[in-house]
């Protein structure tokens, strides 16, 4: 399969990359891991005139933990996130998402920024980022802004980022106290697969670890974007975490999604699996929350 022809740029700083994007407008595309973009170009679904490679920008590849936040450069690979001890300790569900993505070969190339920016509804990293209430640092030649990830996804492949903006980093507030999370994905196969349903849940318990102070549930593959489930969250907050409560929340989550029917599964099956994965990820979140002290 032949790649369409394009002009290639290799900036070495974010500023230089933003200048190139500003100059070439919609005719240029940032190239991160290439596992999505190059495939779409080979299939001729996309034929950008220019590619701006982000692979030689050292500041995009950094991970920093400070003042209760974890800042992950957009160019950090999925395999680095999957094997990071810091991620496993502070935002475990993101590590679980990273380990579920693609294959080892894809994970060694794909980046967190690319997994967010490509805005696929079934992507493995967004649900965890939604429940941790991560913010995206968007950079352009005009400056920098922060956007809650909840406001970023607009539809399949569509985002709130402007054509001249790059995702520079992802900033995650590290949960403290009795807080925990969990992520699960269901596919036809365990690797190299598009998810049928993927869910992340987050729970924060009160200071005696008895009732739920905050709850967040995010669903993937069952709508045009990854989405939060307000009904499930409302069911959980202020209650004591029990299996019966998680069952109710799981039921509520099934009503907050709009799954499609395709060769991977029927809409009803997807809806049912939203319930199962919500219940299971809530149990994972509770186990982790209780293990903190």
């Amino acid at each position, binding site marked *: *399969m*032949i*790649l*369409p*022809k*394009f*002009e*290639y740029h*290799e900036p070495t700083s974010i500023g230089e990359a933003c200048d190139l994007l500003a100059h070439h407008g919609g005719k240029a595309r940032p*190239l991160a*891991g*290439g*596992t999505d973009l*190059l*495939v779409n170009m*080979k*299939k001729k679904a996309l034929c950008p005139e220019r*590619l701006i*490679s982000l*692979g030689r920008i050292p500041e995009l590849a950094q991970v920093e933990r400070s003042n209760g936040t974890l800042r992950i450069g957009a160019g950090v690979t999925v*395999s680095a996130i999957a094997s990071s001890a810091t991620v496993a300790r502070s935002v475990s569900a993101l590590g679980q998402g990273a380990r579920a993505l*693609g*294959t*080892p*070969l*894809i994970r*060694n*190339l794909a980046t967190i920024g690319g997994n967010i920016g490509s805005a696929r509804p079934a992507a493995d990293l967004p649900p965890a980022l939604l429940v941790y209430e991560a913010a995206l640092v968007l950079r352009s030649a005009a400056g920098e802004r922060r956007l809650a990830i909840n406001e970023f996804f607009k539809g399949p492949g569509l985002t709130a980022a402007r054509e001249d903006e790059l995702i520079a980093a992802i900033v995650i507030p590290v949960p403290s106290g009795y807080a925990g999370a969990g992520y699960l994905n269901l596919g036809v196969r*365990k*690797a*190299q697969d598009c998810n049928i349903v993927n869910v992340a849940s987050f729970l924060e318990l009160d200071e005696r670890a008895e009732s739920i102070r905050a709850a967040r549930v995010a669903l993937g593959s069952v709508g045009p974007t990854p989405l939060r489930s307000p009904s499930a969250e409302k069911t959980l907050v202020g209650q004591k975490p029990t299996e019966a409560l998680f069952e109710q929340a799981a039921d509520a989550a099934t009503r907050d999604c709009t799954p499609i029917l395709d060769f991977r599964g029927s809409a009803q099956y997807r809806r049912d699996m939203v319930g199962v994965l919500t219940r299971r990820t809530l149990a994972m979140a509770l186990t982790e929350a209780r293990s903190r002290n």
Partner: protein
Amino acid sequence: MKQLIRLTVNEREYEVAVEANTTLVDLLRYQLGLTGTKKGCDLGDCGACTVLMDGKAVNSCLVLAVQAGGRTVQTIEGLETAGGLHPLQQAFIEKGAIQCGFCSSGMILSAKELLDGTPHPDEPEIRRAISGNLCRCTGYQKIIEAIKEAAR
């Protein structure tokens, strides 16, 4: 317009002119003549084109040749030494893990990244490590046995 890049392949330095839209697998096979790296689906699905880039196993069909500039690449041709075949290559032969051979280069390089970081993997770790490499002949069992044997 062609761009001049330098890269190290199997411990040998190359300076080559490549088109921006040339992928690493095509550079290896058609410009450097290293046809041990196979080209299967060309979309990152099958793993036949797996090479190690800076020690990490990647689909070379999803890497532009220009992106490999300045990097160190290892292909199947780089595994044999004066002392003989690499233990993984030897184990693949002895355990019958090679049938048609099309997936073998990629399988062996994925397994090499695993063993470089985890010298004594358990079976789930082996299965995960080769989960991006498709084999249509062996049913995988003999490949897993070969990797276990090489790790011994």
